[in-house]
């Protein structure tokens, strides 16, 4: 039994050595495999959620994301909707957004990029407040708080 334990221990240690030796040369392929695991995607609370609709106007694309209510189990009462302005973004923007895709605008958002001021006009009682309004590498992004 003592010999078996020694052999098992030494084998495991040598296997560990091989693991460390191959770790760095194969790091990219190991990482790609790990990245394919089902949970390896950024939570919608950070990524902003999938695109729900796109409006193209004067070289600028307005991307309205799906509302995010993600909680640990099920959905939360309060969430947000992210709107991205991509491409040739004007100095002043004023756009009505229909996030629930019912054909009626839910809020009006006005952004003055030079003074970094954003005005939110809720047109739907489910719209609560302005969470974030910021310049991004692709243009501008706004997150608006909403209720279920």
């Amino acid at each position, binding site marked *: 039994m*003592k010999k078996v*334990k*020694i*052999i*098992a*221990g*030494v084998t*495991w*240690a*040598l*296997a*560990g*050595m091989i*693991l*460390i*030796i191959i*770790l*760095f040369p194969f*790091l*990219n392929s*190991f*990482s*790609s495999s*790990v*990245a394919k695991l*089902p*949970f*390896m*995607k*950024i*939570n*919608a*609370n*950070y*990524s*902003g959620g999938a695109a729900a609709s796109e409006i193209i106007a004067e070289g600028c694309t307005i991307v309205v994301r799906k509302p995010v209510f*993600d*909680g*640990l*189990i099920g959905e939360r009462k309060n969430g947000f909707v*992210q709107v991205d302005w991509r491409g040739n973004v004007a100095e002043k923007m004023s756009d009505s957004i229909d996030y629930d895709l019912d054909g009626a605008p839910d809020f009006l958002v006005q952004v003055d990029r030079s003074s970094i001021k954003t005005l939110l006009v809720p047109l739907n009682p489910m719209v609560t407040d302005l969470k*974030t309004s*910021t*310049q*991004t*590498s*692709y243009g501008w*992004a706004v*997150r608006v708080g909403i209720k279920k």
Partner: protein
Amino acid sequence: MDKVLTDAGMKKSFGKALLYTLPMLLITFMFISGGRPDFSNPATSLAMMITFLLVNVLYFMMHYSGKTDQYRAILFIIFAISLSFTLISNMIATRNSMSFSQADILECKIPFCHLVIPMMILPAAFTQSIIFPGSIIGGFASIAPMIVLWLVATLVLGRGFCSWGCFYGGWDDGFSRVRKKRTITRINEIWKWMPFAVLILVSLTAALTLLPTYCSWICPFKAVTEFEKVTSVESAAKAGVFVSLFAGFVVVLPVMTRKRTQCSFLCPLGAVNTLSNKVTPFTVKIDKTACNECFKCVQACPLFAISRDNIRKGEVSVFCSKCGKCVDTCPNNAIHYGIKGVPAGTMKYFSRNLFLFVSFLFIAVFSAGSIINSLNSFLKLFF
């Protein structure tokens, strides 16, 4: 007498030490140069050469002198400083600031580090997603490679990751060596369980809020890496907490206690790594027949991993990070690196050589990029 006994321990002749260093020389050469050294950029070439020489001289010295901890600590501390330098310089190059903005969060551009891992587990299980605004793969400090590096290192080294892989540990390890005598001599060992409380707290709060709460509110290393831009009372409070905890747990307490207090009392990943010590093949053994119970190792251990009870039982606790300080301190060579299943006092040389090769290879290759980058930035001032 003590000195003579210690030196007689694991010390090797010059030629033998060089022979043991040869595999490390070859492997680190392949990793650092990519197999094809390019001398077109003098600053980068010199940075690579210095890094290559540094890691191999340290590894050679471990074999030649028979000492482990002091040479490990040099690389470990350099790694921590160079990693912070790399992170900060990357932040300044890409954002003109050490702080990240709302846009960086929205675009998921925040560099990922291993300390987030414990907070990801519950949300990943329930929501099938990662609660961190970083990149899954590709780009600077992405999530998947960091998980792979940590997972493999932890599987093989256990809590050894905390002394041979963690790019933050070098900070409090460094400060714990500043003074020769301790100002605070008595610390209740119950505090060593504190990381488990922090782990439970941050895991639960992260699951409930879907926020990496340790990173958002506690992590002392935000002070030497990157943090949220101060734009509100909340962000100012967070910055205050980061700086205070860094000053307290990483600078002042390690200086006063000569212990790694951040790693011992605060780090939630340290708690996870402690559990992983149960599966790793490598361990530190106490040969009771050679031990004269001087308890110098108890004093020396920076992580409260050895108590008098441990010595009487003949085994270190699961808190051991295999730094080698106790091994170097023991005047009778009663403490040594070992392999699980192999009785204490036997296969000492084989166990130490194998452990040193594995652990040093990991830190040498893992740290090389940061050290080269930092040296390169410095050398560019002259070239």
